[in-house]
């Protein structure tokens, strides 16, 4: 009987073949019940085999919650995760670099094992959805045969290393960071130093500090290319930043070193990984990222610890050998040329305007293939493989904005390339504009999704692609996450959204928090904050209001970021206030389902609405009060008043906790009483616990209460404000469950 294992024998490295065989054995053991489900879950995650929505065997079909009775019965592939349930498979594509051959194999795998679609992630990865776990070993073998690994694509390890997709052809970069990203990936993949982490670990390489191509500020380690003159010679190296991260509460990375010589790149990273394994939290996942280790010791002490750890490492030839084979040189299959002028107003000229950028090398351009929601089909992948061979250097790059960049396009080929892309349905304009919206999977496939981020992104995309826009508006970035976890990177967008829900008169209504004040440039240079929850169906209207206000009230050349700072969030909050109102269920039922999903939005049995009028419970009044406090905290933060901001954030959490206590018919006023009773009634009982994050949000109140007399820094005040918002969201969710 032919198998992919026998068919590909010799095409896969022996260690990789053994690893995949080992995983197959673990699958057998798990099916026999001989391997603990939690252990197996982490093992499969480290092989890129992820869970997906409804894998707990339940789904609400809009009328009732129904059990999904999978044929393999009670067998699980992780706690509460059924064996037969479709899952997600994530690959590891360092720097997003894919060859034509790899694109062809990915097309085959999408068609044979998934739903026919390849999905580009915000880490320059590819994901397949609706994959059965029993298909994953063959999928890994076929990937392994073309040099793609799924190892450590998920789980508590070093995730895909990202790099600027135009590195090597960018006019602003110090040098091409590609070989460094590839080299570090090869060094760390499967390395012992990265096997004992409490959480994931993310690394990026940027070629410059000004753009956002690799987002150094939001990474556990962010390297930014730099050069230095040493003894009359130009040395290559990196500014190294550590402890950045988005997630529920974002942290900006801190400067670890002004210059890490290229020879020190691998050992320095190795040392940081060892420190993370030693000092990183292992039990409390909510505090297990490197940012908490850096915060705990302080950047100065952490820097000393890294240096000390580095000294303990024995020399390893791999630290420098990977550099030897790489010589940066132009790679092009076509001679440079001049573009033939496209007539103004044509589809080609529109596309050229938004999707084509001049390379550093004269006569060549980069072309961005704007993928709607990061998706493309198997046929489109093969078309891209043909294009990579015909017009490029045989490769393409995935981007963190879920697009594909084609490099080394001779300007003389632009018109014919456009025609070929158009034939493949890949010539949509609007790359890197407001229409090119980043989105996480959200409620489509993610178990944590609260609102339909992809549904909203698709809706906004189609609206903004159809409009002629003021250039200042066209240049803005919109990013959407389905929950607070920021997989859609909403914190660093000009305008971000993250999914929340609200319970109104017994009905649950999908909402998005509007996040304002983030900065995409400067490697994710500033984080925005939520200013108000808008019902999903009103988000396009609210966005239009904000953009119209910017278009009419901005000062000359004023960026959106500066505009927000000038007018203030209070004004914007007032502006969108009318859009926050939800019509009753009987007035407009469309508000009670999400974008692209006609099911009534609910996770449980619904109560009946009140036709005669709105009935507002004391809990709702209390939660509204807490939101008011949270907003005043933001305003204080914007004014640079750290202490006032932290105090208001603390009061917001107290108000939300007190609101829930009122729901238990308990009336208390003193902070100590609120916290004690909240602990007794909501923490000890786990009533406040998030189904996935556990007691994480409850701890925000306890921490704030303990620190209420401390003088906060602006950074810690910002975190407290963010935590207050999340605590309030958790209180809304808890109220929904009560």
């Amino acid at each position, binding site marked *: 009987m*032919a198998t992919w294992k026998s068919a590909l024998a010799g095409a896969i490295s022996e260690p990789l073949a053994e690893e995949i065989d080992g995983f197959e054995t673990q699958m057998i053991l798990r099916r026999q019940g001989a391997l603990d489900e939690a252990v197996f879950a982490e093992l499969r995650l480290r092989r890129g085999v992820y869970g997906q929505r*409804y894998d707990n065997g339940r789904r609400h079909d809009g009328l009732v919650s129904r059990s999904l009775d999978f*044929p393999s019965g009670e067998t699980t592939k992780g706690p509460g995760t059924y064996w037969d349930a*479709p899952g997600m498979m994530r690959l590891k594509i360092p720097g997003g670099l894919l060859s034509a051959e790899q694109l062809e194999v990915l097309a085959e795998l999408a068609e044979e094992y998934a739903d026919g*679609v390849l999905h580009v992630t915000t880490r320059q990865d590819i994901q397949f959805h*609706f994959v059965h776990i029993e298909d994953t070993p063959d999928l890994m073998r076929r990937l392994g045969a073309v040099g793609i690994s799924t190892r450590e694509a998920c789980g508590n390890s070093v995730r895909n290393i990202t790099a600027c997709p135009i590195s090597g052809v960018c006019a602003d970069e110090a040098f091409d960071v590609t070989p460094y990203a590839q080299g570090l990936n090869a060094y760390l993949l499967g390395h012992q130093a990265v096997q004992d982490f409490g959480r994931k670990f993310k690394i990026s390489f940027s070629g410059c500090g000004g753009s956002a191509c690799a987002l150094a500020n939001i990474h556990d380690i962010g390297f930014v290319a730099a050069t230095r003159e040493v003894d009359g010679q130009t040395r290559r190296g990196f500014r190294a930043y550590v402890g950045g991260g988005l997630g529920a509460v974002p942290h900006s990375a801190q400067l670890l070193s002004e210059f890490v010589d290229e020879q020190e790149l691998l050992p320095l990273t190795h040392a940081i990984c060892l420190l993370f394994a030693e000092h990183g939290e292992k039990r409390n996942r909510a505090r297990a990222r490197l940012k908490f280790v850096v915060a705990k010791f302080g950047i100065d002490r952490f820097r000393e610890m890294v240096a000390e750890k580095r000294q303990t490492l024995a020399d390893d030839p791999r630290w420098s050998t990977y550099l030897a084979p790489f010589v940066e040189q132009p790679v092009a299959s076509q001679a440079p040329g001049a573009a033939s002028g496209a007539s103004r107003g044509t589809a080609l000229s529109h596309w050229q305007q938004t999707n084509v950028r001049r390379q550093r090398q004269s006569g060549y351009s980069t072309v961005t293939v704007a993928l709607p929601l990061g*998706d493309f*089909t198997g046929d489109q992948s093969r078309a891209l493989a043909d294009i990579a061979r015909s017009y490029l250097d045989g490769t393409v790059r995935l981007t963190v904005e879920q697009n594909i960049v084609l490099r080394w396009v001779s300007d003389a080929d632009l018109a014919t390339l456009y025609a070929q892309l158009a034939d493949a349905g890949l010539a949509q304009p609007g790359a890197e504009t407001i229409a090119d919206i980043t989105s996480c999977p959200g409620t489509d496939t993610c178990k944590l999704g609260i609102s339909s981020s992809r549904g909203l992104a698709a809706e906004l995309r189609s609206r903004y692609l159809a409009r002629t826009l003021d250039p200042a508006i066209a240049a803005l970035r919109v990013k959407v996450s389905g929950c607070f976890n920021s997989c859609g990177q909403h914190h660093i967008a000009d305008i971000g959204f993250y999914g929340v829900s609200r319970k109104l008169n017994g009905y649950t209504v999908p909402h998005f928090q509007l996040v304002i004040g983030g900065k995409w440039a400067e490697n994710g240079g500033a984080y925005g904050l939520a200013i108000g929850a808008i019902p999903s169906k009103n988000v396009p209207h609210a966005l239009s209001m904000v953009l119209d206000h910017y278009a009419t009230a901005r000062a000359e050349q004023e960026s959106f970021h500066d505009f927000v700072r000038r007018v203030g969030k209070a004004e914007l909050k007032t502006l969108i206030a009318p859009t926050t109102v939800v019509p009753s269920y009987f007035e407009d039922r469309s508000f009670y389902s999400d974008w692209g999903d006609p*099911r009534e939005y609910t996770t449980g049995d619904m109560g009946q609405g009140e036709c005669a009028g709105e009935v507002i419970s004391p809990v709702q009044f209390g939660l509204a009060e807490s939101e008011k406090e949270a907003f005043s905290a933001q305003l204080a933060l914007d004014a640079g008043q750290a202490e006032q901001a932290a105090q208001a954030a603390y009061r917001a959490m107290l108000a939300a906790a007190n609101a829930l206590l009122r729901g238990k018919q308990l009336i208390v006023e003193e902070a100590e009483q609120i916290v004690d009773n909240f602990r007794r009634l909501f923490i000890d009982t786990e009533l406040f616990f998030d189904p996935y994050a556990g007691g994480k949000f409850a701890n925000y109140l306890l921490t704030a209460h303990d620190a209420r007399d401390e003088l906060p820094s602006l950074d810690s005040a910002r975190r407290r404000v963010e935590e207050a918002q999340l605590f309030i969201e958790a209180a809304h969710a808890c109220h929904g469950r009560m």
Partner: protein
Amino acid sequence: MSHLEIEHAKRLCLKLPIIEPSPAASITDGAIAVFHQLIQRQALDKELMIDVVDYRHLAQGSQVLLICHHSHYALDFADGVAGLLYRDRRAQGSLSERLSLGLSRLKAMAEAIIEPLALGFAGDRLLLRLEDRLWAPNRSEVAQQAQTVIARALEAAGHPDSAVVALEEDRRRALGFSVKLQRALIV
């Protein structure tokens, strides 16, 4: 490769062309709701229906999918042909058995959506693919053998004298055939 080996080919894929409305793209919005309703009504016998997937933003390929445990169904626009697609994901048995099963499932699905989406199908035509590059690589000699096996399997499934023609196309695609049935699958 012998006929017997082609019998092992998994992941059979069948597409029933849509002839009404034209262009069929206009039905995708309605299809989202209809697919959700099929789940609510548990309308497909012996299928564990899991979820509906919305890929309407894609210019090609499957745009609205109904994901089931054993099969995927989709309104598909690949090859410039609108059609109802059936993709066998986990069916067991010989190719003949799975083809027979596939035809009955495709028919059941077509019947379930024909009215709510006001569809018309070219009921005697099928596009058939073997999405299994291990057992059915897209090579001319494999296509030739598979053609015979498929014709025989169609006969066993109650469709004798069907015309099966291998598609001359990109060899990187899954092995594909156009099929003309003597008796329409759906009228």
